[in-house]
């Protein structure tokens, strides 16, 4: 991943009106504290030297999901052309954490940003054949125009925030 790719990714996020914060792994907790509204639920972050802060509920029940304002989960790939994040569905329930609360905070390593769809699909193809079974390519918040004009937060999150880990 070149700096160009990261810059394109940021530009795409800007176009989507998606907030983003770049941070060193050591500062992640502080950033999360700034961008999350409690109650916050989360799914584990599988990145070296990074963990969820203690104030995040990482074993949410359906009740917790209903009440949560923010959900934190990991993104495995960023797609520069589109500002998309790839959200793998993990056995700890990352899919519901990224879906039910009003705000989704996706944590992504800068080195996982790829230029476009073909690169992302090539990487996912290998993972899927190796047994990883589900991922969502998410671009911006949930949206609908079915009620007469564009509204965000139809069934999924109304807002998305991408935290980019600058290693």
């Amino acid at each position, binding site marked *: 991943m070149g700096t160009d790719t990261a810059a394109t990714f940021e530009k795409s996020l800007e176009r989507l009106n998606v907030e983003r914060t770049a941070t060193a792994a050591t500062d992640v907790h502080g950033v999360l504290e700034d961008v999350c509204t409690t109650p916050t639920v989360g799914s584990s972050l599988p990145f070296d030297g990074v963990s969820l802060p203690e104030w995040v509920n990482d074993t949410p029940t359906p009740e917790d999901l209903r009440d949560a304002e923010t959900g934190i989960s990991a993104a495995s790939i960023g797609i520069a052309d589109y500002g998309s994040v790839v959200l793998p569905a993990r056995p700890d329930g990352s899919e519901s954490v990224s879906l039910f609360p009003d705000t989704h905070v996706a944590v992504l390593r800068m080195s996982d940003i790829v230029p476009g769809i073909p690169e992302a699909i090539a990487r996912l193809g290998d993972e899927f054949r190796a047994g990883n079974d589900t991922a969502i390519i998410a671009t911006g918040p949930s949206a609908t125009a*079915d*009620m007469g004009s564009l509204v965000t937060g139809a069934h999924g999150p109304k807002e998305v925030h991408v935290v980019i880990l600058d290693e």
Partner: protein
Amino acid sequence: MSNSGSREAKAAHLRQLLETEGDAVAQNTRGFNAGRYDSVSRLDDYEALKADAREIKEDAIARLPELIDRVERTVEANGGTVYIADDAADANRYISDVCDERSAERVVKSKSMTTEELAVNEALEADGVDVVETDLGEWVLQVADETPSHIVAPALHKSRERIADLINETFDPEEPLETAEELTMFARDHLGELIEGADVGMTGANFITADTGTIALVTSEGNARKTVTATDTHIAVAGVEKVVPSFEDLAPFIELIGRSGTGQDITSYLSLLTPPVESPAVDFDEPEVAVADGDVDRDFHLVLVDNGRMAMREDDQLRETLYCIRCSACANSCANFQSVGGHAFGGETYSGGIATGWEAGVHGSDSAAGFNDLCTGCSRCVDACPVGIDIPWINTVVRDRLNREGDEGQFDFLYEGLVPDEEPGGIDVQKRLFGNYETLAKLGSATAPVSNWIASTRPARAALERVAGVDGRRELPDFQRETLRDWYASRGPRIDAADADREVVLYPDTYTDYVDVDRGKAAVRVLEALNVRVRIPDVAESGRAPLSQGMVDTADERASRVYGTLAEHLDAGRDVVVIEPSDLAMFHREYEKLLPERSFERLRDSSYEILEFVYGCLENGADADSLRGDAEIAYHSHCQQRTLGLEPYTTAVLEEVGCDVLESDVECCGMAGSFGYKSEYYDLSMDVGDRLREQFTEPAAADRIVVASGTSCEDQLGSLLERDAAHPVEVLDPHRRTGR
């Protein structure tokens, strides 16, 4: 019902839709269409992506039986179940059984046109299962008890105000809902609760990959994600044609589907699910057990539906329909669809240009018969289709088949005698009349001006309207006694063969030859001004007229005659110059289906639209000063000319000779050959034309010379604007009088 009676009923139905749904449909579809142009223009290589997508679909459909086997093995190895359903009843039975086995009381659904095709909801409701559509558009329709008017945005015929009235009346909220935001949040909460209590989640599938058994779902709202996450049983229902060989094949479609449809670069969510997914189900019946600890055994069923598709695959003409990814571009780019929407331009389930193929394939030709005529063959959808389906051709073929299913007893002695076509007796009189325009024109010209006087008398117009449905409000063509060919034969060429830079055949299309002889004369003079020697041989009508009425055999016979006449000119190195874009489009597009490949390619490679040819001459050093120019022009190109990518030549030439050109941006003028002459479509045609009228009556355009490349566009502009329209070549005519 008599023919004229059914025409009146059809006209009334269209008028009613224009009034009730037309505005919302127009606003939404035009927004999508404009979005598509913008969005695809941001791609580095749109054409290459489309070519990739097409290739993948061609290959997948060719190998479909093998791929279905593969999907079956893969999904079963993953732990799911595959059921191949022969038809709707078979699919519904299986789905009911699964729901029954899981003792399901409520099924939540994300949007799926295939389940509409099967009428799954009705089948489950008959079993007492509560079925809830969670896509907001589908939900609105479920509440209103209406059918989709669009394959992607099913409720686009409803304005926000009408949706608000419906929801307020049905649910009677404390505060009446008004804004899109309020309506959306109400639906989110209402449906959120229903999803929490659901037992089975049902989705469609946009693509299914044979190598990994992955279901790809293209959505924006997040309801498909919730539908799958909040239930432990997932039933995915899809046509067999949705299978692609490998996971990597998804890439071009992901980039094309949203752009082509609603003009979004990508939709909010692309779910890639390889079920049964490992992700734990959120069990709201156990609200206090951590999701990850829940003891949920996920169950997955993939129902692959044939319902006529395997037969479509064997059908050389309908096969392409199976490449369709249901993006809706062929609906949004269609001028007629933009006016009336899918409640007119659609059958039992599907709507838009490709619906004819789907309906004929899955529901049978009756369902296609009701709306197939709304495709005028303008071809604006052809470039918009991400998988390059020749949608107008599919409409033509189905029309031809419908003609053949006609009642043989309807044999009409008058027309059988008059029209030397290749069609069976059952064909509708109106189609036969317009399909044999050449014969009519010959007859009309031979007896002009008497024929014109008689045709314009009231009794004759009334008879024409009653018998053949030619709308009395349209002006009939004024046949000329001296045809273009007669004129040229007595005048002779003015450029010596020895001095000419080139020699060409000017194709005498029926309209130019018999009706608008002036534009033919202008074309001759313009070509001669560029030192081109002209020949106008006796060439048959191109076949466009019969083809537009679905008379494929007649068109085929015309193509052979045209090629037979032109072959020696091609051998002699003469280019063929064509004034009428719809005839040129025959040579460049449809003849591929009607002539041997080599003949088609030879004619295509040597035939040019007249302004394209003039452009070429100027580029090669001809003197632009020999042409007239210097005029303010309002120019409407021709739909088929646009599809061939030829309209820039006209603008370039006009500008080169010093004209100031303002170009329309509407997809089609609404006349579309004979379409606007038909009494049942008159109002629709005028509604479509209205946009053009608006553009050309704005102050910036109102005083300009109106110029159009197509015959029927000229006629339509004439009636829309009540001033005459000319062909661009008449602007260039050295003999043109000032001001015209």
